[in-house]
């Protein structure tokens, strides 16, 4: 019995499809990569110190922190949630490490304790959101203030010097490229998780069709809580490596600034705020775009007052061209 063609909608020939589909996966990131390259060319043209070794190191430090936290936020965005408290776990974790170290634990163990503490914050965020059915925006807003106050209290508002031997500090972020190497490692792992594991697939399912995913038997509560914990651990880890980089553990570090940078990196890279899909590689490129903008304009000598205006204008231009490029790609696909 011949198989009738059920295709009632788009009729695409299989051979051309293979080629198109092969690139469809990278489609989403393609346009933002173009934007990143164009920006780099621009800044190098304006200031030939841009692509020097010294500045590449500096640039890598502008990028690393938001890239790592973006990995977590992207997973949450995909499954329909968000974590506003990430920047404050960033500030708290190094203090937990400091106090654990003061209490006698060797620095590497203190670091692990700090990461465990961060995961507890994520657990709290996840349980309140999923079990008590509070929208994650509101939950993490509350957590953000809680953490801020808590960090200020335990630190008495004063910064302290980050501990650890010089070697340990160098591995964990003090030496020039340490941070960006950590960032690449985290991005590589999270990219694998999102694309090649059940966890990633189920995260997409929970975001794309929550009811359907539950009907298929996926434990969506498990997925969401797990992603909250993941994000908090990544945020805590980032706070710790930044504390090693600048040798100072400061209660005012991080905050909503780094959280927004991370979410922005994710969105600029191609993860919609509405959820259901996302790209970790795109998040890295988004972080690169933001880092290039911030470092490039600082290098150029733009003064603080006009700085934000110019960054804002460039982000808009970059995103408008990105979205239009994506639109053209999609039309071309049809």
């Amino acid at each position, binding site marked *: 019995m011949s*198989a009738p063609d*059920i295709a*009632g909608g788009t009729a695409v020939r299989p051979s051309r499809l293979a080629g198109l589909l092969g690139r469809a996966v990278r489609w989403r990131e393609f346009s933002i990569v173009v934007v990143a390259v164009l920006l780099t060319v621009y800044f190098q043209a304006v200031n030939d110190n841009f692509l020097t070794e010294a500045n590449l190191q500096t640039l890598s430090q502008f990028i690393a922190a938001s890239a790592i936290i973006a990995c977590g936020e992207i997973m949450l965005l995909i499954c329909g949630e968000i974590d506003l408290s990430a920047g404050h776990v960033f500030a708290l974790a190094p203090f937990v490490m400091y106090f654990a170290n003061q209490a006698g634990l060797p620095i590497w163990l203190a670091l692990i304790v700090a990461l465990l503490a961060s995961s507890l914050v994520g657990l709290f965020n996840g349980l309140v959101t999923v079990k008590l059915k509070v929208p994650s925006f509101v939950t993490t807003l509350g957590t953000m203030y809680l953490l801020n106050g808590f960090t200020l209290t335990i630190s008495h508002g004063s910064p302290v010097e980050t501990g650890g031997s010089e070697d340990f500090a160098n591995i964990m972020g003090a030496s020039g490229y340490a941070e960006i190497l950590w960032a690449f490692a985290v991005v590589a792992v999270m990219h694998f998780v999102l694309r*090649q594991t059940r966890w990633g697939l189920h995260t997409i399912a929970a975001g794309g*069709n929550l009811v*359907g995913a539950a009907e*298929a038997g996926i434990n969506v509560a498990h997925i969401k809580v797990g992603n909250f914990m993941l994000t908090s651990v990544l945020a805590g880890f980032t706070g710790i490596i930044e504390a090693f980089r600048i040798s100072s553990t400061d209660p005012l570090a991080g905050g909503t600034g780094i959280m927004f940078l991370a979410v922005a990196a994710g969105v600029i890279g191609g993860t919609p705020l509405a959820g259901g899909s996302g790209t970790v590689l795109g998040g890295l490129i988004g972080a690169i775009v933001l880092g290039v903008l911030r470092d490039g304009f600082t290098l150029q000598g733009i003064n603080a007052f006009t700085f934000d205006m110019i960054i804002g204008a460039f982000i808009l231009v970059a995103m408008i061209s990105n979205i239009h490029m994506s639109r053209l790609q999609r039309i071309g696909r049809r």
Partner: protein
Amino acid sequence: MSGAREALRAEAITKRFGNVTALDGVSMRLAPGEILGVLGDNGAGKSTLMKILTGYQPPSSGQLWVGGEPVALRSVDHARALGIECVYQDLALVNGLSVYHNMFLNREKRRVFPPFMLDNPAMRRRAREILEDIGVDIPSVDLEVERLSGGQRQAVAVARAVGSNARILLLDEPLAAMGARESALIIDLILRLKAKGDLSIVMIMHNYAQTLDIADRIMLMQHGTVTYERAAAETSVAELMEIVRREYRARRGA
């Protein structure tokens, strides 16, 4: 029915939600390889019966037999393990995922090494096999399901259910919101499935004419009870409509 063991049998199923009685002593049987059409208006209890048969909810009282063995379904997974699969009205498909990922949702194949890594090539292959086996032509299993037409999506949802070694397939309004052409194609699919011989199918429908075309037997439900049961060939749309009207008038009169 014949001497062969029934695929599915229910006796005196009752379901109460507080004061409301959704099902009031429903009995039914499904022969192997048969298509049973369950008809009835909204509120007749069809969805509730479906939920009980898939293991989503337990009955307040009554007994079920699967393949001749008495069972008490503990969960959806338990029902699945016994070969009962359901295709819900909303299809439970994830738009952002490909056809083959949807077909293996929560049943994904994984490689031995590296650990945790999905075995996409194996899933792709098997997805193609299943689709071919039931005669569904999708251009590519890599397409995201949001790019398929309504009929193709329904077919993928059915293929997912069939592909997990179902013996009893429950379809909730499979032809809902479909035009004539797409309905014809899905009907063909259902008949092909029946022709394979190893599936028994229960379909919840509201279109009497289509149901009589496809089903072997029909069961009419009204207000939580089965009011009429007949082989499809032995009844007609007119007769069914009359039964419904009679019951409606009787209620109004009372």
